[in-house]
């Protein structure tokens, strides 16, 4: 597989605050790569450094081995959305395509077909002021892919969209990847990322937490956890086999189980006198890992240390 984008040891400081540090990853042709992290983790800073809107203090960025940004081969949807206010939709799309050196006639055709696809048919001659926020976002998405980019960078593409539009975006992003576009997107909507992405890079406080294949990550971090409702002794639960740690909230206990545990067999080992009002057993989701990181929990630190 061809590597489209390589980020190597990227670092950026804002005054005394280290915004990002030692960020390294790459994006391959035809894959969807996600940058995840809570607000303020440094996702947008990383993307802005890639786009040349900011200049990094350390590290390097290369596109197919070249240092220079091939601007007309990249599509970019920034986090802060905006368009010229009193301009027609088609005029903006054609202007942005022209800036990318894309042939005008082809751009017009593509613009019309995408407008149709995104339920904006017939709006090409209305002014941007008349569009709703979601419509504006769709127009921006179209503007970022109108020139058939080889690398597409989407900063929070799903924020502010209704579920129908989210699905539309998801389908389109997947299709682009199938056609060989390398896609880098940032998000904090875990369910979407879980469905969509091939690989992920999770960061917190400007540093790498997890980087790898979606399936690997799930397998590595998504152990079983058992939630028990009922009056029990914490100490007793802690001494059950294969329990790595216990979290308690009133009468609810969450037991984090060891890797490779067999769920049914483990359930059989529960003592008879245990007070169980409710019991559930499931895997730790990406969502929980995310929350855990955002609240400085310890799933990843523990697991990460074990697998480092």
């Amino acid at each position: 597989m061809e590597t489209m984008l390589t980020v190597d040891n990227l670092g950026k400081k804002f005054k005394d605050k280290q915004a990002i540090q030692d960020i390294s990853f790459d994006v391959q042709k035809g894959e969807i790569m996600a940058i995840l992290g809570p607000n303020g983790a440094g996702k947008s800073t990383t993307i802005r450094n890639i786009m040349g809107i900011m200049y990094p203090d350390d590290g390097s960025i290369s596109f197919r081995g070249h240092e220079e940004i091939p601007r007309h081969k990249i599509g970019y949807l920034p986090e802060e959305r905006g368009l010229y206010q009193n301009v027609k939709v088609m005029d903006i799309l054609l202007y942005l395509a022209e800036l990318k050196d894309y042939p005008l006639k082809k751009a017009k055709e593509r613009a019309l077909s995408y407008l149709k696809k995104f339920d904006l048919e017939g709006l090409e001659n209305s002014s941007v002021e008349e569009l709703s926020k979601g419509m504006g976002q769709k127009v921006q998405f179209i503007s970022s892919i109108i020139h058939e980019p080889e690398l597409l960078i989407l900063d929070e593409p799903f924020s502010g969209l209704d579920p129908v539009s989210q699905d539309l975006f998801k389908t389109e992003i997947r299709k682009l990847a199938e056609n060989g576009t390398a896609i880098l997107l940032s998000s904090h909507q875990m369910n979407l990322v879980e469905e969509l992405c091939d690989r992920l890079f999770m960061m917190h406080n400007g540093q790498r937490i997890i980087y790898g294949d979606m399936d690997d990550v799930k397998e590595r971090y998504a152990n079983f956890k058992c939630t028990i409702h009922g009056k029990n002794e914490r100490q007793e639960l802690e001494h059950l086999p294969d329990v790595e740690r216990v979290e308690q909230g009133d009468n609810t206990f969450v037991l984090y189980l060891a890797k490779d545990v067999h769920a049914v067999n483990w359930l059989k080992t529960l003592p008879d006198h245990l007070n169980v009002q409710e019991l559930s057993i499931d895997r730790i989701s990406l969502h929980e890992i995310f929350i855990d990181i955002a609240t400085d929990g310890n799933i990843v630190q523990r697991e990460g240390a074990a697998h480092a």
Partner: protein
Amino acid sequence: MRNAMKVGKWEVKRNLKNKSFLIGLFLTPVLFLGFMFLGSLFGDSDDGGETTQVFIQDQLGIFSSLEETIEATELDWEMQTTDVNEDDVQNQLGESENAAYIFLDERALEDGVIPIYTSDEIGMGFMNQVQVLSTPVKALQMQQLGLSEEELAAVSMDIQFEETTSEELAAADDAETTESGGFLGEDPFERVIPGAFAGIILLSIIFSGMYIFQSASNEKKDKIAEIILSSVTPGELMQGKIIGYFVLGMIQAGVFLVFAVPISIWQLDDVPILEYLLVPELILLVVIAILGYFLFAALFIGVGATMADVSSAGNFQGMVMMLPFPAVYFHCTDHQ
């Protein structure tokens, strides 16, 4: 550079499709010229509307010389002799509007006082106008004292001071031909017309510079700057804006001139406007104007880059706009 041209083309196209820009484009010259010429039109008709009736009770026998004086000064007076008594004046004035009674008798020669009775409404500045009558009265006074013609001329002549600075002396030595007249030369329009043209150019430059600044900060505010910067470098974007707004400024100046030149030719019949305008110095002016535009654009971009949005930069904008005016001040003090 190609990208800069694209940005420039876009800015021109975008603004020319923008209603508020178009309204401003045509309204500015209309307002400007409107105030310049309409004011004088109304002024003329006001003056022409009212004729002052002046009745003179002439006991000195100088009515004919007074008439000559009034004719020479082109005052809008209708003069008549009258034999109304000073005591009856009140009745006479009560019936008439815009009228005045002047009594010329021994008092004028002996005390130098001429009584004038005016109606309630009298043309503005009548009391100033009436001063011209003092010359013939003065002449009569002198005559009665028995002065000869020569003595009369000497006495009635005003004393004038004529100033020549050393600079002017040097200039006079350098150039054999001396210009007659003062600062504005023989025909004031010879200087005024290029000056007005330069003023139009100056205004266009300031406005274009301001537009660049507003456009850049609006892009920041509308959050589109990042999208544009993903396609072009910041340098190209700004170059494009400078080119684009230069063209827009020229369009503005062009529209202004399309209004101004025909109206001026129509209003100022006998002034050869085009001959005064199309002189070799015009090329120099245009070169300086273009350089000035670059200076302004650079200042506005520099300032705009440090400002978050238009409103926070409002004060600074005013300061940058005032920058060319100290030059005007120095120019004027230089000539005084």
